C-alpha cells in the first residue's frame, strides 16, 4: 500500500514500492501496488505499507490526513510491515518539526522525533547494518533534519560514512518490530536488495536469494567511487 504518493513520492522514492513489487513477482508471488490518496480511507488489510519522502510543502497536508486515519496503526499492530523514507519516516515518529517552525504530531509507530538541523547534509552514506542483513547499507542523503531515536528504537545501520540521523551515535535510520524508516535515497531498496528482501521476508517468510548482476555492479561502483579508505573498509 503506497500511502499518499501524490504528496509523498518525489526524489525517486516511489521506486522503493516498485522494487518490492518486482522482487515478489520475480519469485512468482503475486503483488499489486495499491495507492491511497488523501481523502480516502487507508485500508488495514495490506501486507506492506510504504510512505515515501516528499517536499516540505506536502508534509503538513499528509501529517494532518494521517492523524485522521487508523488503518496504518491497526495494520502495524497486527504485524504488517510499515516502511517510511525521508519525511515518510519522520511522520511515523512521535513529532516532526520543519525548518520554517511548523511542528506536527506523527502517528507514533516509532520512538522518534525529528528536528531541523543547522546544516543541510548530502552525499553518499555507507552503514554497517544493525538489521539482520549482511551487505553494507548504501544510499544517498540529502536533508536538513536530525532524527532523535528514543529508548525503544534501534537504528538500522551504524555509519561508516555520512551524517545519517545526525545524532552523536553516528547511526542511520530506525526500526522497531516490523516498522522501518530511513532517510536514504537511491532509491534505498534498489541499491540494497537485501534490505528489500528483509521487508518481504517479514511477510512471506524466508526467501531464496535473487541475484541481479546490474545491482551488484552498481554497488561495487558506488563503493569504488568513494575515497579508497572508506570504500574498501565498507566492502569487508
Amino acid at each position, binding site marked *: 500500500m503506497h500511502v499518499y504518493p501524490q504528496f509523498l513520492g518525489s526524489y525517486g*522514492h516511489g521506486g522503493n514500492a516498485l522494487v518490492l513489487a*518486482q522482487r515478489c513477482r520475480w519469485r512468482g508471488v503475486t503483488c499489486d501496488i495499491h495507492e491511497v490518496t488523501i481523502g480516502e480511507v487507508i485500508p488495514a488489510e495490506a501486507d506492506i505499507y510504504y510512505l515515501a519522502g516528499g*517536499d516540505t510543502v506536502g508534509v503538513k497536508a499528509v501529517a494532518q490526513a494521517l492523524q485522521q486515519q487508523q488503518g496504518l496503526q491497526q495494520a502495524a499492530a497486527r504485524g504488517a510491515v510499515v516502511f517510511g523514507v525521508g519525511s515518510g519516516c519522520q511522520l511515523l515518529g512521535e513529532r516532526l518539526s520543519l525548518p520554517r517552525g511548523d511542528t506536527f504530531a506523527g502517528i507514533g509507530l516509532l520512538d522518534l522525533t525529528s528536528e531541523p538541523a543547522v546544516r543541510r547534509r*548530502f552525499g553518499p552514506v555507507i552503514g554497517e547494518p544493525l538489521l539482520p542483513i549482511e551487505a553494507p547499507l548504501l544510499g544517498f542523503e540529502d536533508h536538513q533534519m536530525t532524527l532523535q531515536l528514543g529508548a525503544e528504537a534501534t537504528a538500522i545501520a551504524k555509519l561508516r560514512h555520512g551524517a545519517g540521523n545526525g545524532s552523536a551515535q553516528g547511526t542511520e535510520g530506525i526500526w522497531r518490530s516490523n516498522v522501518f524508516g530511513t532517510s536514504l*535515497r537511491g532509491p534505498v531498496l534498489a541499491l540494497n536488495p537485501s534490505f528489500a528482501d528483509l521487508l518481504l521476508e517479514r511477510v512471506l517468510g524466508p526467501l531464496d536469494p535473487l541475484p541481479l548482476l*546490474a545491482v551488484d555492479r552498481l554497488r561495487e561502483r558506488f563503493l569504488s567511487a568513494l575515497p579508497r579508505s572508506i570504500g574498501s573498509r565498507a566492502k569487508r
Partner: protein
Amino acid sequence: MCRFQAVLALDRGVKTLAFALGGVGIRLPRRLLVRLACHGLAAWLMPASLALAARGRTVVLVSGTNGKTTTTALLTRALGGTVATNAGNHNFYCGLLDALLRSNAPMAVLEVDELWLPEVLRWLVPELLVILNLHEDAWLRTPDPQYVLDRWKTLNLGAGTALLAWADDPALVSLLSNRPVQWLTQQENDAKGQTTLQACPACGEILRRSGWHWSCRCDLRHPVHRLGPQATWQLSPCGTTLHPPTGRRPEVAVNPGLSGRINRRNAAFALAGAMLLGRDPEPVQHQLQTLAQLPLRDQVYRLAGRDVRLLLGKNPSAWIANLDRLGTGGPVMLLQQQSTATLDLSWLYDIPVETLAGRQVGICGAHALDLAVWLTYAGVDFIAAADPRALVGQMAPGELLCVSDLLGAYLIEALAN
C-alpha cells in the same frame, strides 16, 4: 598576458596586505588568498559590469526550472533582427555578460539560472520577465522547489517590468499573486500536471483540483478563478491555439517548428512575450516555424552513419515532457553521462519508464549501470554498449531517438562532429 600581469599584481597586493595584517600570508597558502581575492574582485566587478553592458537596451529575461534555453531561443527568433542572447546553458553572470558584450543589439533576450535570478534582478531591469515553471530538479543545488521559491521571495521587480508567468503552477501563483502578472495557462485535464504541487505553498493545505483548475481554502487560487478567463493568456489543451486576454487579438495559432507538446507551451510563451513587446503575431508565428532544431536540446545528429534525434532529459519533468515525443514503436537510446555531485540518480525513478516496455531500448554512458538497474526493476528489456556509436550500430532500423542528460548531449555533439 594582460590577465597574467593582473594576477601577478594581485598576488603582490595580497601578499603585502597579508603581511600588513600580521602575517596571515605565512599561515595561509598564498595561492588560496589569490584565488579568494580574484573571486572577490570578479564578484564585485561583474554585477556592475552587467548593469553597464545592459544600459540603454531592452532586456528580456527568461527563467524557470525547465524550458529556459528553448523559450529563449524561440523568443529570440520571434523578435527577429539582431538580438543579443545567451541561449545554451550560459545562464550565470559570465554568460549574461558575455552575451551583452558580444553584441551591440538594442535588444537582449537572456536566460537566467533560477537560483541566480534574484541576484541578476538587482542589476538588470528587464522590460519583460518570463517565468516558466518551478519543478523538482535533478541537481543538488535545488533540492526542493521550495528552496527556489524561498529565494525568489526577494525578487527585485521594478514597476517597469512586465511579468509573464505560468498560471498552472501554484508555487508561482503563490509567489506572484500580489503583483500584476500576465498569466499564461493551458487547459490540460490530464495527469501531466502532477509535476506541480499538490499542497498549497502558502498554507500547506491540500489543493482542491477540478480538471485544470485548482484552489485552496486560504484563498490562493488559479488566476483564471481570480481574474476571469478573459484576463489571461489561454493555450488550448492541444497547444495549437493561444487566446490572448481581451483587448488583444481573438486568437493566434501556435505552430512552432519544434515538435512536442512542451515545445508548443514554450512557443506560446515566446508568442505571448513577443506580443507583449509590441510585435505583430503574424511574422512571429512565421519566425517560430523556422526554428526546427535546437542544439543539445532537440537536434538530429549524424552518428555512426545514422541520424539520431537527441532529446534532452536532464530531470524528471524534462524526461516526462519527452515521453510524448518518443512515440510508441521505434528504437530508443538512453544516455546518462552525468550524475549530481554525489552520484545520486534517484530521480530516474520518478519517470514512468514502463511505457518503453516492448520496444528496443539501448543504454550507454558513464552511468549506464544506473539506467540498467532502473530499467530492470521497471521491467523494460534493454541492450547496453560502452560507446554511443557502438550502440547506434546495434539499434533496429527506423527513426532513432536518444534521450540524454546534458553531458551526454555534449558527448553526442562531439562524436557527431
